[in-house]
């Protein structure tokens, strides 16, 4: 186990892509302390900002408010990063495997263009989670992002595969230009959900204001959702699949593209 404690809050965001199990495993304590981080254009040593305990491990714990520390877990392929406070932008970007757990909040671009692994944030996150970076054809292509709180704009923008589950509300353009994969919106979304959606599935447990380019198909209980629910339960996410309790309204679109995406909106059976 390697433990980092933030001892000095960086004046501008600190770029710390060295904080990945792939980079830390096999390194002695002195080598880890000397790892490069960038403060603006200035290259610094990791121990200018963190107290470093432990060595040679693919398990990393970060204590303190790291909301200004960017690129934690970038391109990691194994191991575990536990963050006891907040995390900065680009957490787990390009991630290939392993797990990241954040007790506090994280910022924009969580798991952007990731291909595997699991990121769990207990609090709120910013926008563009699991998204494609500007210009890229595809966002996340695999893996799982689980958010306990709310999320910002463009959740899962251009995602191709994988699962994003947000327990709280999200803002505009969830699933923008989505090409595949699954987004679960526990607390609904603001406007333009699924805009330019080509394929993929968005499941909302709260009512949505949908674009006119989504066509209503029917209300039913899709069989595949029972299989999904079983898998999601192992991740601690629950979606209703009891037909007695209600049904999902299925919408297809976005016909502006035209796309074959689907949006399921949970509708509980009325009590009357």
């Amino acid at each position, binding site marked *: 186990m390697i433990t980092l404690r933030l001892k000095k809050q960086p004046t501008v965001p600190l770029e710390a892509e060295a904080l990945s199990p792939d980079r830390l495993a096999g390194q002695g304590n002195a080598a880890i302390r000397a790892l490069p981080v960038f403060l603006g254009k200035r290259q610094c040593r990791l121990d200018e900002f963190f107290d470093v305990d432990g060595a040679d491990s693919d398990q990393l714990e970060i204590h303190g408010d790291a909301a200004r520390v960017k690129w934690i877990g970038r391109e990691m392929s194994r191991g575990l990063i536990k963050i006891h406070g907040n995390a900065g932008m680009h957490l787990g970007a390009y991630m290939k495997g392993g797990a990241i757990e954040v007790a506090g909040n994280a910022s924009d671009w969580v798991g952007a263009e990731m291909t595997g692994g699991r990121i769990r944030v207990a609090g709120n996150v910013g926008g563009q989670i699991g998204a494609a970076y500007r*210009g890229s054809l595809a966002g996340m292509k695999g893996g799982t992002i689980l958010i306990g709180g709310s999320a910002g704009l463009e959740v899962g923008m251009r995602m191709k595969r994988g699962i994003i589950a947000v327990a709280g509300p999200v803002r505009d353009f969830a699933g923008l230009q989505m090409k595949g994969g699954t987004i679960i919106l526990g607390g609904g979304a603001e406007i333009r959900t699924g805009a330019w959606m080509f394929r993929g599935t968005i499941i909302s447990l709260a009512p949505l204001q949908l674009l006119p380019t989504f066509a209503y198909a029917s209300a039913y209980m899709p069989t595949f959702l029972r299989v999904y629910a079983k898998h999601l339960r192992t991740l601690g996410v629950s979606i209703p699949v009891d037909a007695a309790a209600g049904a999902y309204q299925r919408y297809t679109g976005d016909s502006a593209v035209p796309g074959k995406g689907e949006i399921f909106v949970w509708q509980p059976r009325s009590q009357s």
Partner: protein
Amino acid sequence: MLRISGGKVYDPANSINGVVKDICIDNGKIVADVAGGRVLDAAGMIVFPGGVDIHTHVAGAALNFARALTPENQRAAAKFLHSEHTRAGIGGQTPTTFATGYLYAGMGYTTVVEAAVPILSAKHTHEELNDTPIIDKAACLLMANNEIVMDLLEAGDVERAKHVVAWLIWAAKVYGVKAVNPGGVTAWKWGKDAKQLHEPVYGYSKVTPAKIIAALAGMVDEFGLPHPLHLHCNNLGAPGNVATTLETMKVLEGNRAHMAHLQFHAYGGDDWHTMRSEATQIAEYFNRHKNLTCDAGAVLFGNAVTITADGPWQHLLYQLTGRKWGNLDVENETGCGIVPYTYKGSNLVNAVQWAVGLELLLLIDDPWRIFLTTDHPNGACFWRYPEIIHLLMHADVRKERVKKLPAKARARIFLADLNREYSLYEIAIITSAGPARALGMKQKGHLGVGADADVVIFNQNPDGEHMFRYPRYVIKAGEIVVEEGDIKNVRNGQAFVVKPAFDEKIEDFLKPVFQQQYTMSFENYPVERERVHGLQLCPTSQAGGSS
């Protein structure tokens, strides 16, 4: 003073084919002998004249638009870090200005031609070329959709049109004249294209693409420009366009012309499903007509960015790919389209395109008339030329690659039947001596006494790709600029410009037209001479001489 000693020299312009001899350099030029100075031991190495790229897109508004449109390519691109000799930059599909110079020089290329410059963005282009280090540069001016010129042709005033063209060439400080989809870009502004050579361009009653081509080719010859009309034919990329290309070549009989990226113009079939190679038809005609030169415009599988003045084609490509599309309107002069594209071996059309480029290089029998290009960044990046050289030198490697193509594609090409293998001597022709001759650059592309001392020295290697990608030394204007892949010395190259004769009074005609139709003032239009760093005025062979 420098002596390159004991290398095996390939200097086709002087008929030197693999002879072991010393090359001596003094004051940036090749000389007969030097006494003293540094000796570079090139024993066992191969010595070539510096490479000349006759058709590439490395600077200007369109390229900058492509850079802005594809941040994803830049994220994945090779990075150039700031060092003692180099500025920071990035490589990839559309390298930044400084990186362009390092990449070309690193591959042994010392002269390149930016093939498409609108007059309106000539200043921008020269600014970028000023920042493209090491290599010498020249540019071709987009002219076949200039509405001032077309209006004069419509009115039958060819004489005045000639003076306008000559004035514009000097105003833009360029080396040659380029025609892109003649009439088609003008028509595109009305949502149309110019697909028929002998039908009037939309908005005109008399001007046809054929007339524009004939008029411009004639003017260029009459001006005595060192490089003939540089032509991108109508119907680029379209199945069945071989008919248009052959028809265009007929229009050019009696004039010189350079057919750009011929690969994109040699397809048969009626649609995307029936598209096939017609390289034999093109090569057969081309071989018999010595007034023409061409460059391959070869395609390699992988990511590319297509960027051309051919707006209507780019709109079609955008519709086919569903990817990003950029479109520029350049007032009365031209347009431009940008579409990022990925060539895939599994795709029938792409497989045919890949084969056609190589087929043309193998079927056109005179290497002095076909040159190695990829129409960078359209068919592939220029830094991938060594991959093509390797394919040209090894028939068995080509045949192995062909086997991997879909059966449907293999039935539409005949690359596997071609057994020709390029020798090093022929590679030196298509990468240097040939394009230099077609450009009329007498000081380039050879190692005879008096030539510019642009020399590449390779370690001999049966793997042509490796050999040509990593020269042992690159010498530019007598200075060693690259040594074992490292940039050692950076100085800026020259910019070649021509000034055809024109009647100064043509400005009295142009100025009012301009003030009525353009968004900038006439005085700001021409590129000032001082703005072009390293400007070298090249002579024209015009009877009256340049004024």
